[in-house]
């Protein structure tokens, strides 16, 4: 293997790992929500879009760094999530319907309204937050002059990767060590049992949806320096979130990050060695394969080795 080939391989792997972190970040909110409520939320990407617009407004009006705007966007999305769950989803879940998936219409409706409101307020222009560090990167050759290969590591991508790890750790702590977290997990595992044990299930659902929304809001703020926004951006991220959720296992934070990494590395390798046009096919093939062969996702594999939470 010549040095240029080695360089391509290493760079591809690094890109894959960083991309995986980003995917995990986007999917982690959904995994929590789906784990507790088993609902298919098609408005997930639109919630991320809302957070990105919050970051955009703060940046363009007050020059607040997108990373700092997490402090505003995450609580705002928490409240939005709580409101959606309390006033829209809960009433629908409470009524018995022939097809319980009828909540899908609800989330599609919510997504439509959010995306359309963004169109009305911000018009359909592409917006971005041109931060000075957007294309900043570290290069191996800057530190080691005679290195046979030159590898670069992007600053904003690394930041989002690190935050994804921190969030995973924080969430894991929250879910396993705090009372609220334990109640949420109990609700996820067995609704009736949790209710019998005195857990306020409705409340836990509301909190969970809030946390899930706040997480995807955080993802939006971390994402905007390397991407851009327009009102209809949400859909593609909803899809990625589904993949991460299933790959990692419903409700598993550790699973989400490992699932994200697997997916990221796989996609990068496909893009380099097969063709980038095929990368999404691979993504959904993995998805279907996991659904069929490892229905519990990565988390179930971890658990069987007593590593899971």
């Amino acid at each position, binding site marked *: 293997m010549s040095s240029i080939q080695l*360089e*391509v391989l290493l*760079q*591809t792997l690094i*890109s*894959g790992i960083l991309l995986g972190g980003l995917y995990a970040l986007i999917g982690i909110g959904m995994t929590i929500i789906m784990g507790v409520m088993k609902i298919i939320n098609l408005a997930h990407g639109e919630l991320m879009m809302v957070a990105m617009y919050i970051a955009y407004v703060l940046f363009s009006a007050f020059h607040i760094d997108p990373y700092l705007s997490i402090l505003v966007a995450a609580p705002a999305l928490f409240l939005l999530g709580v409101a959606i769950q309390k006033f829209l989803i809960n009433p629908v879940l409470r009524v018995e319907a022939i097809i319980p998936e009828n909540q899908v219409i609800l989330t599609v409706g919510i997504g439509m309204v959010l995306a359309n409101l963004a169109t009305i307020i911000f018009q359909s222009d592409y917006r971005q937050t041109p931060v000075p560090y957007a294309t900043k990167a570290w290069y191996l050759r800057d530190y080691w002059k005679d290195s046979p290969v030159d590898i670069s590591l992007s600053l904003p991508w690394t930041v989002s990767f690190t935050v994804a790890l921190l969030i995973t750790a924080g969430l894991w702590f929250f879910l396993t060590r705090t009372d609220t977290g334990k109640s949420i997990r109990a609700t996820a595992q067995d609704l009736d049992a949790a209710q019998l044990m005195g857990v306020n299930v409705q409340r836990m659902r509301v909190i969970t949806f809030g946390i899930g929304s706040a997480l995807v809001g955080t993802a939006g703020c971390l994402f905007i320096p390397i991407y*851009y926004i*327009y009102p209809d951006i949400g859909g593609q991220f909803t899809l990625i979130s589904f993949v991460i959720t299933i790959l990692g296992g419903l409700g598993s934070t550790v699973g989400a990050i490992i699932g994200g990494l697997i997916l990221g590395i796989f996609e990068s390798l496909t893009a380099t060695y097969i063709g*980038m046009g095929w*990368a999404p096919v691979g993504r959904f093939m993995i998805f279907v394969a996991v659904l069929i062969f490892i229905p519990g996702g990565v988390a179930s594999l971890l658990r069987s080795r007593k590593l899971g939470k």
Partner: protein
Amino acid sequence: MKHLAVAVSLLFLFGLFAAPVLAADAFDLVIPLPLTGKPAKFGEIMKRSYEIAAEEINAKGGVKGRKIALSFEDSTGKPEIARSIVEKLIDTKKQPIIVGEYTSSCAKAVAAIAEERKTPYLVVASADDDITQKNYKYVFRQNQVNAHYGDAVVSFLKEVVKPKTIAILYESSAFGTSGADAMEKDAAPMGAKVVVKEKFETGAIDFKPLLSKVKAAQPDVVYTVAYANEAQLIMKQAKELRIDMKLYAGGAAGFAIPEFIKGAQDAAEYVVSATLWTPQLKYPGAREFADKYKAKHGDYPSYHGASAYAALYVAADALNRAKDWTADAIRDALKATNLKTAYGPVKFEDKEGYQNQNFHETLAIQVQKGEFETIWPKSHASKPYVYPVPSWKDRK
């Protein structure tokens, strides 16, 4: 209380449905456009430009003494909805001419209907070669065909850069595919070998694996066709990876909108792109239109806007010249169009297997100090080109 609420909402709905009160002799022109969904951005640029044009035409007396009453319908980028709108315009509103649409799939749906129902249709910014290759008699296209979008860039490459190898990256869409195919065909006469030809999914986030692959192939030039903001992501990530090329070139669309520079910032510098129009052109009214647009909406319009602006003039001109407003009279008037517009001279010709196609000069632009400058052909250049381009390391 309940009754009051019902009454209020009924009133509200009634108000919405009530048609706007118009002067009796106004000429209603409804334009189908994508105003929501993914292509909405371009629909919006065009909507604003039509509005500016209508205002000016009305100030000058309108068409045949009638003021144009412009309105828009949102086709949401779906062909069957575009078809609904146009069926309605032809049937119910008896609109004598159809102008508009943006995506090629919608334009194809509209063109088929216009031809079947014998209503002249002026295509404004849909690039797919097919549209004017179907022997349609009533379909006219003002913008250049996709196969020729890159002409100016190709001639720039041939005469200045003289690449030996070229990499072509394109997004997965009709626009990307035919743009990439056209460049592949143009590469051989230039003496360049295509070393990489790769497609990427619209909305992709990470282009680094693709770019690493390009880096390994070491081409002289990378030519990328991307619809929207993938263009800026590719340049940002190319900068991060410090992939040096003799030249980065783009095929219009995403490389020729102001957001490209705003998003990619310094990574956009020196990138050359094909375009169909720039505000610096010395066509009559080009500058005035661009300035008016900028004053109203904050940015210079892209070629989509200029084409829409001029299209309304072309349509008004044809309507003015037509002896009456029957389909055939308007068709003949359009066919005889020879108009100097802000977008350039417009004339509909049958050649190279296209019918009723306006073949206008395409341009190459280069980002210099954060602005688009026209660099090619030399007769239209606003600034001399910068070539060779400094390597990423030497830029500060």
